[in-house]
Each structure stands twice: as C-alpha cells, then as structure tokens.
C-alpha cells in the first residue's frame, strides 16, 4: 500500500502498541493535538491517555521519566517536538541512558526510543531546523537511526522499539509528506544495515535522511548524462555499516558524501575517515568529497535556507566536477 512517511511511522507505533502492552508514547501535545507534526493524530482514541501520555513542557525531566520506565521493563517511545530541543534532554540521554548499562556492569538494559523531527526546509529559522545526529555520534551506548523513506521508517521504527538500547530516531520534517510503498504484512528493517538504494559503477554517493531523496533525483539527472551513480543510504548513522560503504567505494573508486547537517564534525567526517582508513582508500581515483550544510545557523529567509543545505542541483554539479577531475575548481 502507498502511505506517507508520517503514516508509516504512525502505523509502526500502532502495530507495536497493539502487540506489546509495554509500549507507550510520552511527549508534548501528542494526545488530542496529535503531535506538533500530527504523527500521533488519532492514537489517543485507541490507546487512551495512559499510553499516549501528554507531558508538561519539561523535556529534561520527561526524558528521564521515559528512561526510568525503560529500566522497569517498559518500552517508552519519547517524542521530542523538535530535535533542536534535545539540548534539554542531553543529560538524561548522554550521561544517564547511554551509560547506565555500562556503569552498572550490564545489570540494566535501556530500551529507550527517542523520536525527534529534525532538519531544515519549512522556514522555521535556526532553533527549529537543525540536524542533530552529529551531537550524539560521539556517545558510545547510543544508536542513531535516520530513515529516508516510508518503507524504512516503518521497518526501522519497529526494530528500534524492539531494540534493548537507547535509539535516537531522527525523522526529517520534509519527508513526513512523501509517499512510498509499504507492505501489508509485518516486516522489519534491521538497524545497523545500510541500504543500496541504486547500484551504479562510476561514483558512490553516501547520503543520509532528506539528502537520500535529493540524491535519487540527482542520480536520475546524472544517468541522462551517462554517469552511473551507486547510491547508499546508511539508514543507521551509529553504529555505521562500514562494510557496505567500503565495498561500494572499492567498486566505484570515487566517493561523494551528502548530508544536510553542518560540515564541521558532521557525519560526513566520520564516513570519510572510515573510508580513508579502510582498504577502500587504496581503490580511490579521486579525493573523498563532502557536500553538507554550510557551517552557519539555518537562516530564516527561505531562499537562503535552501542555499544553506545541499539541493539536487548542487549534488549534480558536484558529481560532474568529481567525474571530470575538476576537483578543486
């Protein structure tokens, strides 16, 4: 069936909540209001206020509340209204959730799922537009997932709910309305497994989240120009499926990494380093390149906002330059 990314996420939660009484959702305005982006719309009617728990505006604490419930064999799904607000939740996620299992020598498991919409596009300025995956990339004990289409969103969300670890599940606001095919039957998309979106031979593009969709468009344009792109979506940002990306680079010999978040210390830096220190490095015919958001806060003006992050035409141009050997032009 064809569903939106938003509905795929909702379906995953509904199906898991029907199946497992330990699963509940907690967050701001997720009940009657249906969530700031409408993801939980209508769920209150089926599951009631004890499983669709509206909270006061206390992110730092209700993150801890969800964590406390996770320690008690519940399966909390925490909705943070905008990923930007995870700054409030940072202590509970970074110092508590990510470390409790380790610090207690494995006594506890921490099945906390943190869902948060991120990314720019709706013109909401710098505090409602960030890509936050890099904030958490440096924290052992966390997993980070960022689906780029409805099929992955539903399958990964079910896997994330079932995972015994803290998973940061990053949904992109611009993806909520995109449609895709989702099977009727129950399925999972495994965490820690990259997806080869399109096979190709000339260059590998590793793209994340919204940039996967833009890279699909770019690859189609490039195909008409006789450039064959192999497009890989890691889907799970931490831990990375290094094997799949290494294999692809060994095949194509060229690599472009595309992500929406800022360049400094971004996911691209990590992927580039992984390739640089792998045997794939020896196969490279060109330097590794990154297309990312500029190192600026997201501007309010919508024309500027678009310029601040990689768009389809930017990807096309960059690939052409790499292929032509105009590396530093």
């Amino acid at each position: 069936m064809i569903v939106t990314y938003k509905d795929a996420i909702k379906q995953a939660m509904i199906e898991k909540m029907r199946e497992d009484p330990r699963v509940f959702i907690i967050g701001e305005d997720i009940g009657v209001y249906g969530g700031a982006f409408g993801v939980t719309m209508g769920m209150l009617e089926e599951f009631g206020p004890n499983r669709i728990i509206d909270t006061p505006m206390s992110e730092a604490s209700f993150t801890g509340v969800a964590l406390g419930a996770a320690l008690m064999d519940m399966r909390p799904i925490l909705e943070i209204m905008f990923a930007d607000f995870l700054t409030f939740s940072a202590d509970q996620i970074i110092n508590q959730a990510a470390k409790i299992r380790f610090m207690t020598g494995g006594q506890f498991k921490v099945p906390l799922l943190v869902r948060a919409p991120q990314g720019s596009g709706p013109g909401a300025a710098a505090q409602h537009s960030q890509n936050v995956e890099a904030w958490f990339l440096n924290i052992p004990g966390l997993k980070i997932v960022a689906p780029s289409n409805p099929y992955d969103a539903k399958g990964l969300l079910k896997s994330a709910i079932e995972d015994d670890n803290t998973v940061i599940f990053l949904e992109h606001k611009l993806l909520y309305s995109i449609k895709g095919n989702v099977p009727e039957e129950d399925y999972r998309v495994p965490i820690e497994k990259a997806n080869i979106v399109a096979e190709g031979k000339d260059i590998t593009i590793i793209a994340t989240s919204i940039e996967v969709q833009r890279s699909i468009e770019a690859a189609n344009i490039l195909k008409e120009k006789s450039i064959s792109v192999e497009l890989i979506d890691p889907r799970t940002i931490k831990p990375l499926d290094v094997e799949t990306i290494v294999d692809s680079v060994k095949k194509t010999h060229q690599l472009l990494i595309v992500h929406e978040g800022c360049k400094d210390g971004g996911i691209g830096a990590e992927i580039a380093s992984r390739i640089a220190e792998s045997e794939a490095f020896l196969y490279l015919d060109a330097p590794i390149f990154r297309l990312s958001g500029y190192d600026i806060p997201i501007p309010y003006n919508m024309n500027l906002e678009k310029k601040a992050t990689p768009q389809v035409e930017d990807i096309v141009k960059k690939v052409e330059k790499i292929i032509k050997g105009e590396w530093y032009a």
Partner: protein
Amino acid sequence: MIKLLDLDQNILIEMLRKMIMIRAFEEESEKLFMKGLVHGTMHLSEGEEAVAVGAVFAIKKTDYITSTHRGHGHMIAKGGDLKKMFAEFLGKDTGYCHGLGGSMHIADSNLFHLGATGVVAAGIPIATGAALALQMQEKNSIVLSFFGDGAANEGIFFESLNMAKIWELPIVFICENNMYAMSASVKKFIPTINISERAKAFDMPGITIDGMDVMAVYESVKEASERARTGNGPTLIEAKTYRYKGHSKSDLNLYRTKEEIEEWKKKDPIENFISKLKQLNIIDDEIVKNIYDKIDREIKEAVNFALNSPEPKFEEIFKYVYSEKGEGK
C-alpha cells in the same frame, strides 16, 4: 521521646547495626583511599546514616530506590554486600559493576536499586519514571528517590515533582539536606528555612524532619510510602542532617567552622540511637560491642576479598556498552 511504633526489637537492633556498618564501611573506604587503593573521588555520608537506614527500613524489599553520588549508605541499607561494594571501590571484576562504575555508581538491580548517578538531581526524573512504570503495571511497589539539598536547586527537581503530582505517582522524594552542596550553604542558596516548603507549589505534602533521628525518618517515610502505595500520590520529605566529612576528597572545609561540625556531632545519629535503645533496655554494652566486633570482622573479610579479587579484562568490557537482544535485565 523515641517512638517505637510497632517495631520488633530485633528490627531496631538491625537498624542500629546497619548504621554502624555504613559508618565502618566509609571509615575503611577512606583508609583505602589514603593508601591509594581507591582512586577518582568518593563522597562520604558520615553523620547522615539515619536518613538512609530510617528511610529504607520504612519501605518494602520490593520497593525501589534511586541513589546519588553519596550513596554507600543507601546501598548498605538496601542490603548491599560489603564484599561486592569494596571490590567495586577497588575497581575489581567481582564488584557490583565489574569495576566499571566505582564509588558513585554502585547498584544492584536484584535489590530493587535502580542505580546511583553522579550528576546531581539526574536520578529524580528517573525515579519518577520508575514510579510511572509501576503505576502503569498496576504493581503494589513504590519508589524512594534520594537526593540532596543541592539537587533541590536543579530545574529537574521541580519538573519531576510537578509530574509526580499531576499523575499522582507512587513515589517518595527524600531530600537529604546535609546543609551544604559542596561549599554552597543552604543558608546562602535557599531562601526558605525549609526545602520541604517547595512541596506547596505542587499541592503535595511536604514535611521537614530531624534527619539525625532514625526513628523520625522511619516514621515519616512509612507514612509517605503508604500514601504512595494507596494511590494518594507523592510526598516530599526533607531530612535535615549533616555530613561530618568534606564534600569529596579535595575538600579543605574552608566554608564552615570546626565548631559547627562539633555541634552537629553532638546529635550523632548512631550515638543517640544507642543511648535511646539502652534507656529502653533493648540493648546493653555487650550487645553494642558484639555488633561493632562482628562488623569489624565483616569489613576485614570484605576488604581482603576485594584486595584478592581479579581485575576486569579490557576485552570483556565492550559487551556492556550495548545490550544484545534477549540478554540482561
């Protein structure tokens, strides 16, 4: 006047024994630290033993606690094994956390101890979430959340009390007001005389008690825990107490006088409880001597166990970062 309540004399003696054990454990810990066998830092609770023991004895074995960086007392009161505690202190594989947590993070999930956090106040929302889980699971247990006066100035303290009250959660908040958050005096940083007054803001019962009197602690926690257990919501208890030793091992005690410390020592919870129990002919000098001698032997045995225990192996600690499916708690 001591309130014997309905307590069996053996329980009163056991309460005394636990207080003596906590002090002996910490005195020995300090010696080990001075010998260089314990590293990092440690936070001693000498003077505060009545709060840990009175509170934990007032709840059931199947009730949960969350603890703090100054948590040895809570752990011993809940039934902590001295061998595993000393081993953890010394960073040994036989310690509660395989030497990965140390002094600040000793916990035992089997004792319904949900962990001790080194970030002040961070355990309060976790305790609140555990109480939410108990309410959802319709269990008859409650949560006892230990924290100090310093934590009562963190935002998440207020947020958590608010949520605990709006949801009428089965939780008792117990503030161990030892008069100083490191060097920060409550006189200087808390405008009201009693921290318990903060409960009023949440329409929650708040009570200030003498934290040097184990029976006063017992009585108030008993009442609050029954309130929580019968669905009548949370309580904030402030136990006024005092730490004889510095905040941690770097403390030069520049912020208080020797006279002040000596004044508080006159209210020593152990000495006072001994004389009360003697007055009531529950114990005599011989019983007290036997308690001290037995604990002395237990401490020596536990330290020897810890000293002779193996170190954790580096290759084995990676498994505690993430849970694999189906294992752990």
